[in-house]
């Protein structure tokens, strides 16, 4: 059964129709790469999934829960939108690390900011469930916050270990190479434990010799059965890492299948042209 279901996404910017009816099913633990020439709507699709854009028409269901429906009576408020966004993580092409925070703080900032709300919920639960006086509740909440903070710091360090940047914990983003920055960005996205991790051309802003280290991290995530959607121009990587490759052209899913089928036995004319243009480029 599909984990994430995207039904009939349409999106226009003014006169320009960017998405023209996208349907996509993703299974749990599946790695899906989206390829296609620029302007085909890949990035817009990813942004719609992450609630950075709102599709004009369409429906999105994650794990049985309807996250988005253009026919819904009322629009989501800011709080609902934030909660829904947290189902997904997004790694940007241009990293977008927060320059004034060091590496570890970049990773822990967002989870730390969430503590306050969690503490409020916890406080409410306490009040309803057990008979405690004020001071006891206050103490319990303070403990809760302290524990959370420790948890977050510990998780942050583990993530740094995973992306192999422990020694850069206290470094600022301006002191990192592109590859290191992108690895921090991946750790930052993972810190919120998203159900699905999305990548928007994660290696396009990197020097060729630095793409490898980022791709290695993504591969290691595949081994841990993370569900991922990756927009990429790295065909070799797409072939290697994907369970499913989606080829987009002019705002529709032109062809979709196992990497082997897509790369070795393309059916549609557009995909054939796209693939040959890429091999030509490589040959130069």
């Amino acid at each position, binding site marked *: 059964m599909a984990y994430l279901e995207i039904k009939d996404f349409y999106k226009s910017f003014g006169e320009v129709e960017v998405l023209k009816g996208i349907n996509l099913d993703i299974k749990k633990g599946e790695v899906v790469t989206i390829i296609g020439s620029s302007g085909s709507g890949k990035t817009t699709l990813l942004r719609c999934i992450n609630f950075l854009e709102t599709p004009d028409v369409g429906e999105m269901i994650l794990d049985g829960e309807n996250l988005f429906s253009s026919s819904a009576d009322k629009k989501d408020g800011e709080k609902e939108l934030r909660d829904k966004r947290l189902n997904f993580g997004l790694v940007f092409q241009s990293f977008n690390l927060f320059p004034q925070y060091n590496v570890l703080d970049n990773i822990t900032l967002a989870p730390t900011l969430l503590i306050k709300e969690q503490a409020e919920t916890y406080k409410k639960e306490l009040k309803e469930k057990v008979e405690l006086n004020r001071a006891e509740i206050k103490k319990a909440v303070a403990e809760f916050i302290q524990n959370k903070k420790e948890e977050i710091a510990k998780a942050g360090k583990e993530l740094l270990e995973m992306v192999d940047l422990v020694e850069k914990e206290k470094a600022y983003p301006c002191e990192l190479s592109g590859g290191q920055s992108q690895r921090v960005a991946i750790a930052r*996205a993972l810190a919120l434990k998203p159900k699905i991790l999305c990548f928007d051309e994660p290696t396009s802003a990197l020097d060729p010799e630095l793409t490898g280290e980022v791709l290695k991290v993504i591969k290691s995530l595949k081994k841990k059965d993370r569900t991922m959607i990756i927009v990429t121009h790295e065909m070799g990587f797409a072939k290697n890492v994907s369970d499913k490759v989606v080829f987009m052209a002019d705002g529709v899913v032109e062809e979709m299948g196992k990497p082997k089928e897509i790369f070795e036995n393309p059916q549609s004319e557009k995909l054939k042209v796209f693939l040959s243009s890429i091999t030509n480029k490589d040959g130069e």
Partner: protein
Amino acid sequence: MGEFLQVTSQLLEGFSTSVMLFILTLIIALPLGLIISFCTISKFAPLRIFFKVIVWILRGTPLMLQIFVIFYLPGLLNLFVWPTMDTGWAWFDRTITTRFIAALVAFSINYAAYFSEIYRGGIESISKGQFEAGQVLGMTKTQIFFKVVLLQVIKRIIPPMSNEIITLIKDTALANFISVLDILYWAKDFMLDGLIWPLFYAGAFYLVFVGLLTIIFNRVEKKLSYFRV
């Protein structure tokens, strides 16, 4: 020597009024400018247009004219009279006069208009990716602004801000057109008695003060040099 001391103490008293006007204007205009800048980048068109017109008027007419209008108009139209302070603290009551308050109001809104444009430029110069990164990490708009964007904006706007703030200390001299007893008022007073040098002496007060401001701004800039935006 007696003359020098007399001039010094009079100019010092005048300069304390100038500095008071300077500090209070900053305390009001810095946050007010930020609020105005939010209005001028608001998506709600009536609000945006209204404040853009206000900023246009405040930047488009002479500050001295604004001081006159704010001081005289309420009385002429029988609207209200600027209040007097009566705290019993002699120096304070002598400094914070009705005229001073009118000047303070004029400076505050005029400088808030200039500051708002600096803030707007600063906010709009921050890459969209910073806002989006905050969004996908589940932050609220307020958190994104205060935890992510603000410090970057501050770093960006220090050079134009320091320019404006240095201009402000010198602009406070305009207040003596409605007879606020600032340093230049007294320097002029001595000149009318035939003493020329207090004018230059008054200039030295400004120079030293601006020198101090420059050092402070350099420090802040250095403090924020650990990151790049």
